[in-house]
């Protein structure tokens, strides 16, 4: 019996070793198959609301309009103030109830990403001399509209390096825009090494390495950030509202030029790496939020018509390394930038947009 147990453990360990990082994503998702249903998330919010004070409710509940929907950023709160419910201000009971909302909305991977990105922000606090608002407490949540099982509403969870924008009951499935990043890319606290974006960076890096030998996969130009990120404009001054998604809706490349190589021209193994990369992003929201999108992205016809391209180093060892998946509706980017706290280090930005269903198709000027 002991031998059999040892053999099983050994097999498990070996499997873990030979499985690429993205396998963890699938495992995370399977652990929370029902997460993301609008009724389920609305029910968790209904239990959270009564714990909030009047003033907390006033910032937590907002109208579902263009300005509120597009108010997310990849900049710290000192530069782009978030005005919704600050997680760092919640008491123990409220924080526990908020977490139940996160559990209802996110896959296990998405929840882990939220925790890890906030840990990374906390790691930066000693470097924040100006200050610009790094820190795990400076992450926020809000509902836009009225949570229900049928009419459109949004749940926003985010801060400096994370923006979950989930739209329920919209015209389209609403998993995006979904921005995430990490600085530092790897760090140690209390003897534990953290790498918040390890699944996505490995999946995108492996994809870039797999297509690097194909000249048509190389994108022209230089990338110092994601291309379809937040817009550094808007009414400036004391009430500066720049650095948000105020440029939405985006326009996207058309035609075949300079978009990378078509997945239809890739080998089965390379196509598997494309799917792994897609899944490393698309499995962050709960299954009910993004399953239909992933199915659309991975349909044979859509996948064949999807472009994958890269620039810089496929192993992500240098700034400017960049990978993009550009399909009939999916748009996913991953870029390696110099760090801000320690410019000699690197930091990651990643973005997932859906060309048809950002904000569930419900955000209009």
């Amino acid at each position, binding site marked *: 019996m002991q031998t059999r147990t040892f053999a099983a453990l050994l097999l498990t360990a070996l499997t873990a070793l030979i499985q690429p990082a993205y396998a963890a994503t699938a495992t995370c998702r399977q652990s929370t198959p029902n997460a993301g249903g609008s009724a389920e998330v609305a029910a968790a919010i209904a239990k959270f609301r009564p714990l909030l004070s009047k003033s907390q409710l006033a910032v937590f509940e907002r109208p579902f309009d263009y300005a509120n929907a597009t108010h997310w950023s990849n900049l*710290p709160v000192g530069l782009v103030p978030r005005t919704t419910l600050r997680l760092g201000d919640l008491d123990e009971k409220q924080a526990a109830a908020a977490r139940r909302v996160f559990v209802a909305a996110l896959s296990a991977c998405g929840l882990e990403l939220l925790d890890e990105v906030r840990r990374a922000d906390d790691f930066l606090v000693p470097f924040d001399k100006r200050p610009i608002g790094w820190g795990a407490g400076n992450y926020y949540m809000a509902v836009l509209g009225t949570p229900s099982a049928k009419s459109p509403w949004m749940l926003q969870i985010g801060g400096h390096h994370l923006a979950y924008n989930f739209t329920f009951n919209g015209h389209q499935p609403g998993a995006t825009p979904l921005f995430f990043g990490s600085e530092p890319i790897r760090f140690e606290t209390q003897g534990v090494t953290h790498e918040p974006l390890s699944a996505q960076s490995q999946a995108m890096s492996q994809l870039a390495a797999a297509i690097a030998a194909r000249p048509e996969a190389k994108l022209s130009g230089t*990338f110092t*950030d994601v291309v379809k990120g937040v*817009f550094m404009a808007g009414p*400036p001054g004391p009430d500066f509202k*720049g650095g948000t998604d105020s440029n939405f809706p985006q326009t996207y490349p058309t035609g075949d030029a300079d978009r990378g190589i078509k997945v239809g021209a890739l080998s089965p193994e390379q196509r598997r790496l494309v799917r792994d990369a897609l899944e490393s992003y698309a499995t962050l929201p709960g299954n009910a939020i993004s399953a239909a999108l992933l199915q659309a992205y991975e349909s044979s016809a859509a996948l064949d018509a999807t472009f994958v391209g890269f620039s810089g180093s496929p192993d992500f060892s240098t700034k400017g390394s960049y990978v993009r998946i550009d399909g009939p509706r999916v748009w996913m980017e991953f870029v390696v930038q110099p760090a*801000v706290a320690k410019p000699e280090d690197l930091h990651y930005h990643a973005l997932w947009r859906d060309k048809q269903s950002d904000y569930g198709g419900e955000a209009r000027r």
Partner: protein
Amino acid sequence: MRVAAAALFAAYAVTAFAHPAPNSIVRFEFEAGGARAEYWIPESELDYARAADPAGDLPAYLLRHVAAETTAGERWRVAIASVRGTNYLGHPYIVATLTLTPPAGALARGFVLVDDAVTHEVRNHRVFVVARHGAGSDLVGALQYPANRLAVAAR
């Protein structure tokens, strides 16, 4: 969108301060017989662009990549009055002052800006184009690859 010009630049620059990929801003002011522009370009991004097109000095480079023309396609005369370096809130910028003169017979109240000084190379870079009007300014729009043309007009 009417804004105070000073506050406008301050806001962009503060944003750049904490951002490893700052954007550019070009502010036009129309005057009798033409226009003047002050063009702030972050050195970090300009370095990538110049590496892809290294010929000549900076004024010559800018003149290859910044132009103005009438809606009928006639070129305005663009000259570089000065180029200086500055450091604003921790980030180094090149500040170029340009003068723009319309072709004979063309109105001096508007032109089509043709600009890819950074965007011909840096795919995520945006150039915010501002037109000053008396005490305030209008954000005319932004250019990002592959877009390199924007109509700018006096109010």
